């Protein structure tokens, strides 16, 4: 369906334009700037709601397509469009950003307008990454996104922010440049940067393997997968609350999205041959990182490791598909694994955002992230404790919350691939419950730990709004995931087809 309005361009450029406007306002009138930023992000969210409403759920083809010549010399186009995989992620992005604004409303004291401007620019770039149908455009946005995040962590972060942000930048930059080499190679072979053309291009096994590995480095760093995950705990711990939220909720999803959009359809044969590699790395992430999370003393670090473990589910669900087809001979289970991966991405986006907001609420009051500094928060902050418990339950995959749906689908489908995959994956339900609930036990329950905790005040209206909206969406998605699954279905089925057809 062709919209009258270039909806996707609005989604990309509205926040960027608003961000640049905020920069020109400077810090002269912070009140006006904040409202302007909030208005822009809410408007972007409303536009994404229109996108969700007008999306045609019956077809797998790209929708809301815009295609304008961009760089003649490279045959590169300003080419945007969404399908069932990218559209939910765009809505998620547009949904989380206003919450970041509300949460940081008065908390950010140092150059608040630059902070909000950076998030607005970042939002536009992230939406662009999900909407880009031209690989060169995708790459440009993918890299450009690093700049605002680099600044956000570096300016508004914690004590070791410089180390964390440079590590973050260099890790992701190194991964990305190899992807660039692969994309240029594909362009030279096919003469086009259109992702659809790259997906259709026949490639030899050797080419596919090299391209697959180049993509793997780029996306594995972003997801992040074990063993290239080490930037994430540092970045999360040092980032301001909003930065952690965006990082966990959206940026990690780009790695998963990259696997679904690039690795699987462009190099299906190499993906089939090397699926053991991804599955192995995913299972290590699920089990080993889960154990690592158990021993953390820092709340943000714990949630960061939990993110890595949960993202392991995404890659597992996506790559178990080949084994499922090998074992069962049909593609139904494969589609279920991919469904699970996608639901897990959305759900983790909501839950991890909520948990980081919770930590932010505590941090703003106590200026400590150490678990040992808390204890018995429930006595002074009962409403907050209720939210924290809900999100912890969701994080450990309690039925009725969104966390359950994704993990259940992935575990169920990996059963069809191999009992041991499912066995190892299911340990996360135990480990996840262990580290999350133990965190809650130590922070929220028990007697009041110290005088500082005794002086805590409960949530204010602003914080209640943010956590309340997130709680509602976590429950909604957990109880009634069908609308999301319906949106994705045709696209996932098409993706499974692409994965199963050899390109040799």
């Amino acid at each position, binding site marked *: 369906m062709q919209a009258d309005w270039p909806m996707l361009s609005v989604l990309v450029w509205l926040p960027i334009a608003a961000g640049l406007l905020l*920069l020109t306002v*400077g810090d002269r009138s912070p009140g006006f700037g904040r409202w302007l930023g909030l208005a822009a992000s809410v408007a972007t969210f409303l536009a994404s709601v229109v996108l969700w409403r007008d999306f045609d759920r019956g077809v797998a083809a790209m929708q809301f397509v815009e295609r304008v010549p*961009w*760089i*003649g*010399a*490279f045959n590169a186009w300003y080419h945007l469009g969404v399908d069932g995989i990218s559209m939910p992620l765009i809505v998620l992005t547009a949904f989380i950003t206003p919450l970041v604004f509300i949460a940081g409303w008065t908390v950010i004291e140092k*150059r608040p307008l*630059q902070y909000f401007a950076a998030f607005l620019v970042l939002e536009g770039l992230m939406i662009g990454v999900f909407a880009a149908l031209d690989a060169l455009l995708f*790459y*440009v*946005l993918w*890299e*450009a996104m*690093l*700049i605002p995040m*680099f*600044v956000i962590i*570096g*300016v508004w972060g914690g004590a070791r*922010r*410089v180390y964390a*942000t*440079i590590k973050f*930048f*260099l890790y992701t*930059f*190194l991964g990305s*440049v*190899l992807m*660039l*080499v692969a994309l*240029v*190679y594909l*362009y*030279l072979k096919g003469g086009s940067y259109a992702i659809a053309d790259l997906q259709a291009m026949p490639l030899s096994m050797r080419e596919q393997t090299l391209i697959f590995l180049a993509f793997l480095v780029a996306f594995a760093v972003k997801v992040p997968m074990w063993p290239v995950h080490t930037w994430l705990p540092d970045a999360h711990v040092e980032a301001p609350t909003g930065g952690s939220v965006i990082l966990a909720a959206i940026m990690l999803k780009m790695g998963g999205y990259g696997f679904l959009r690039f690795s699987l359809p462009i190099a299906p044969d190499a993906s089939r041959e090397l699926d053991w590699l991804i599955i192995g790395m995913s299972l290590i992430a699920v089990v080993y990182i889960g154990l690592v999370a158990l021993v953390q003393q820092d709340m943000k670090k714990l949630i960061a490791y939990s993110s890595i473990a949960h993202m392991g589910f995404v890659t597992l669900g996506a790559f178990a598909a080949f084994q499922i087809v090998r074992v069962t001979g049909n593609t139904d289970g494969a589609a279920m694994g991919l469904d699970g991966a996608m639901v897990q991405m959305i759900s983790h986006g909501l839950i991890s955002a909520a948990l980081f907001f919770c930590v932010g609420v505590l941090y703003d009051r106590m200026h400590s992230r150490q678990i040992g500094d808390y204890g018995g928060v429930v006595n002074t902050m009962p409403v907050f404790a209720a939210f924290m418990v809900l999100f912890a339950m969701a994080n450990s995959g309690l039925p009725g919350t969104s966390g359950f749906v994704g993990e259940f689908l992935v575990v169920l489908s990996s059963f069809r691939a191999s009992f041991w995959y499912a066995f190892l994956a299911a340990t996360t339900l135990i480990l996840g419950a262990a580290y999350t609930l133990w965190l809650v036990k130590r922070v929220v329950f028990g007697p009041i730990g110290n005088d500082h905790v005794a002086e805590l005040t409960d949530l204010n209206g602003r914080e209640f709004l943010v956590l309340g909206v997130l709680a509602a969406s976590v429950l909604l998605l957990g109880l009634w995931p069908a609308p999301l699954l319906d949106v994705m279905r045709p696209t996932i089925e098409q993706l499974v087809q692409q994965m199963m057809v050899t390109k040799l």
Partner: protein
Amino acid sequence: MNPAIITRLDLMLASPEIVLLSATCVILLADLFLDDRQRWQTFTLSLAALAGTAWVTARTGVDVRTVGWAGTYVSDPLGSLLKLVACGTVAVAFLYAYGYLQKRGLLKGEFFVLGLFALLGIMVLVSANSLVTIYLGVELLALSLYAMVAFHRESGTAAEAAIKYFVLGSIASGALLYGISMIYGVTGTLELGKVSQAVATLGPNQIGLLFGLAFVIVGVAFKFGAVPFHMWVPDVYHGAPTPVTLFLSSAPKLASFALAFRLLVEGLGGLHAGWQDMLVVVSVLSMALGNVVAIAQTNLKRMLAYSTISHVGFILLGILAGTSEGYQSALYYTITYVIMSVGGFGMIILLSRAGFEADTLDDFKGLNARSPWFAAVMLMLMFSMAGVPPFVGFWAKLVVIQSVLRIGSLWLAVVAVAFSVIGAYYYLHVVKLMYFDEPDERRALEGGGALRFVLSVNGLAVLVLGLYPGLMLALCATVLP
């Protein structure tokens, strides 16, 4: 063709140079009658001379390659483009320099006259079609630059830098001349077109030619400042007054590109296999050393010097591909680099004031608190140099990588991107200082209105050319079909 007769065509081909030379001589004379307070007139006249030269260049530009002056001189679209960019770059360099020189009592007519003579050298080199014309251009440029580096007479470091530059530069010129003499000895001609024919008949394995080639490569690599002929770059960049460093790092790089293109491609294209191997070594070493050593620098001028070395590695990478796509990418990279480089040194000039050079990295601490806009300009320049989209530096790296992949050198492409990741570190470090650290002092920036305006345009150009790179890419493709 009778060499004694100068035709109308000859005059037309060389008209930009003739205009520039006449104007420079007039300025040289006029400057004698001005005292220090009237020196702005020299400045204005110089800008007028540049505008006039650019206008004549644009007017007399030819669509097809035309040779004149008995085969020693050539005019082609590539030459016109390079000359126009060089005129613009020199004008920007003068604009950046004016306030700086004025505040330090250095505002002498010589600076502008030497700059114009250097430009004349660049233009002669760009239009050279004979080995002797090439040498003439190289020397005119080099001698002007030596004098410009030594221009601040009371500065010991500047004098030291100038001597270093002069001694090493003379050796390189000697090597270049030696190589040229060998090529002349073997081929029996000085004209590049005939050299090319002779090389084709002699074949690529003629030992005398290969010897000559090796010496020519030394000369070219020295003028570019590529490893292992880079020793002069950091010392000279550091020692020279900042406006001179700015000048040195920008327009002469266009000349170096022209030197490499005229000599290696138009003259010795038949020896491509030979110079390709040599340039691979030079280019990889430049990227490696430039990027790694830059990390350890505390002086911004030295850091940018090493960064230049690494950029040169990329330019050579494009040239060594040996395809027209490769030459286009090298040209595009050179122009892009010039834009970024003048911006980077322009920022140093902006931050400096009388008695304070602002050339150490720490002087950029907390710039965001002092001037958010110019911190943003520097941020754009740094990310552009690092090759991060959407800035123009990314496209320059992309086209070079593309042309290297096209000739099947996957490993070279991977090496290039790996070193640019290493290089990203020190650019990020500058951004870190500006944004994440608190300033040691909160003085407002001093630079004048013109400097601020041009620098802002410079910074925005990096962004705009990066968002819409098609125009300049198409231009490079037109002049180098």
